């Protein structure tokens, strides 16, 4: 009997492998191999066009990058964008989700749909629309001047080094806010109503029950949403790329991915650009680990 049982376990384990094999083959060829290839290349001085074999330089590419103000500027630009985008995204989407649940049910559905709509448009379309809005003669200046009562001022949405960072953040925020609102609403709806009943009997007011019940129970969702949006932000490319193509100064929004692309493609330095990719990969890995670690430390059970 026991023997037969082990047999079933073994059989099931084998089936597990069978189910994952197609994907595993795929990831090996299209993810693991290229990233290992990049890791390997990062130890060489290699010109992308050269037919000569690359020369091994050890850690020189990494040392160069750590000494390069240009690279540190990219780290800065990436972090400004990431923090400037994902913190407001998480905060505002949570806030909007809570507020949506306070209005009547019919409006709830329409509001969710309306907030989500930008996420449906493609990045290229979004860029075309926003570049029109940020045009000096476009809606951006008109509206800001209307609200600030500053007629005729050009706020230089795409030109000024502060504004252009803000503009990229705004486009991203606009595009993804609805996505996270929907996720938070799903999370909020899953919290059992009985808990609130109990809290009310204990005499807690709305505010207290939000902080004592809703927030802790929502924490796994918050962590997940944060990690996902943070990874997305660290990988941002197309908005900055299209902005620079249409005349924005590069330095303020020269995020790491853009630097990787330019160093590899424009400057032909594929070894150095691979080293940058590996550094970005490690940064993402660290922050993901860190967020999960931090969230586990004070997880609540119920």
């Amino acid at each position, binding site marked *: 009997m026991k023997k037969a049982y082990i047999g079933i376990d073994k059989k099931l384990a084998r089936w597990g492998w069978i189910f994952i094999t197609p994907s595993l083959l795929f990831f090996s060829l299209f993810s693991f191999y290229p990233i290992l290839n990049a890791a390997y290349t990062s130890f060489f001085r290699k010109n*992308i066009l050269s*037919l000569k074999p690359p020369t091994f330089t050890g850690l020189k590419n990494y040392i160069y990058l750590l000494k390069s103000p240009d690279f540190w500027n990219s780290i800065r630009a990436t972090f400004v964008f990431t923090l400037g985008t994902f913190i407001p995204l998480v905060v505002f989407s949570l806030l909007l989700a809570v507020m949506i649940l306070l209005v009547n049910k019919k409006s709830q559905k329409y509001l969710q749909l309306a907030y989500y709509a930008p996420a449906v448009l493609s990045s290229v379309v979004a860029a075309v629309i926003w570049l029109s809005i940020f045009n000096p003669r476009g809606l951006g200046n008109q509206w800001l001047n209307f609200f600030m009562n500053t007629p*005729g001022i050009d706020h230089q949405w795409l030109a000024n*080094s502060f504004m252009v960072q803000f503009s990229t953040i705004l486009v991203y925020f606009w595009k993804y806010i609805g996505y996270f609102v929907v996720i938070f609403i799903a999370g909020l709806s899953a919290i059992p109503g009985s808990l609130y009943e109990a809290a009310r009997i204990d005499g807690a007011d709305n505010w207290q029950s939000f902080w004592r019940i809703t927030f802790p129970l929502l924490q796994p969702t918050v962590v997940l949403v944060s990690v996902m949006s943070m990874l997305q932000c660290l990988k941002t490319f197309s908005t900055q790329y299209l902005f620079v193509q249409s005349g*924005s*100064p590069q*330095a303020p929004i020269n995020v790491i991915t853009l630097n990787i692309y330019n160093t590899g493609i424009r400057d032909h330095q594929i070894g150095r650009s691979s080293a940058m990719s590996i550094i970005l990969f490690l940064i993402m890995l660290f922050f993901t680990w860190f967020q999960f670690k931090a969230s586990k430390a004070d997880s609540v059970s119920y």
Partner: protein
Amino acid sequence: MKKTLIVLLSLLALGLPVFATGVQEETGPVTITFWTHEDPNRTALEDRYISEFEASHPDVTINRVTNSSSKMPELLLTAFAANEGPHIFNTQIEDGYAYIANGRVAPVNPEAVGFQSTEALTESYVDGVLNAVSEDGQVYGLPLELTNWAPYLNKRIFRDAGLDPEKDIPKTWEDMVAVSQRMVLREGEIITRRGFDFRYPYYLVSMVPMVEQLGGQLVSDDGKTAIVGDQAWLKFLQFMADWGPNGLNLGSPTYQNARKLFNADNNDMGMAMSGLYQAGRIRADNPEFYDSGDWMVIPYPQFKDAVKEVASAYYGHFYMVNGQKSEREQKIAWEFIAYMLSHSEEYLTEVGLVQPTKQLMASETYANIPYADVFAADMAKGNIVYYAENSAKIQELIKEAVEGVMLSGIAPEKALASLKVKAQEVLDQE
């Protein structure tokens, strides 16, 4: 077990629809891929040459692929990095030189292009134009076009600003500021009509000559020092700072592309910098404006206290052939290029592209092209654009410096100091 594996494999195969392109044979039919930048007027011409060439060479199929000129360098690079470059391609010499330097392109086969020897081929072109693609007695490219830029001027807007297109033409950069100030219209700070504006991302072609007028240099004559002549560079950077939104507010890189607005003739662009080919594009985009004769071309301005008369740099788009293809394919590729280039007069009259053979430059056709004399006179005063393996990076550094002073309020001294350090580093890496 076996059965399930087969099912799984076929499921995987379902997800991998294979519509592979055919593998080419060494003999028999040949497909030549030809990558070039988008230019609607030229496409019609070259499509015709392709069908004519295919008719006379039944074994050959030419596959012409176009992409925007700004995307071309990166597409080529990725393809060559994978050793899958096209047979024929063209790109500006600033971007194309790296292909010669790295041995990725094949030398011209003089017989295939109808010459006895490389010397005879070189001899048929205007002196010096093949220098940029010559190395060790071999020629690695033939010019699709050799182009310099000069300001196009909308006479109606000029008159509208109370200026006389006969007398008030801006000859100096100082004049350019003055007439632009007359022509510019704004609502508050927001410009609704610009007098003139620069062609921003193209600093090497259109703005480095301004520095050279003042006695500065991008790279010293011995090629060892970058950014020579501090005073010239400072004056140029100060000029750009004054031009931009924090100075006299005459234009900026984030306003719409000047030369495209110019064609539309919507009363929002007085002057724009472009090449001889622009006339053809005006004719295609806006025939009414083209026929009105309300546009003209004026020489590239000089600084008032210029120490040297320098006009816009000129760049070459050279057709090159992939050195990794078989001998036979290379030969056919050069034959096809020669066939296209045998229509120089049509390229000039239909698209406004100058293929600088001695024969064409001396022809009646060339002399009859409107404003060809302005461009020719300017070209004699210019030099070829800076080309090297690192020219794209150098251009990016100049862009950073100019944008710094124009848009971010960085002092010219500071922008220059940083430009010098970075450009030197790029130069030293060679």
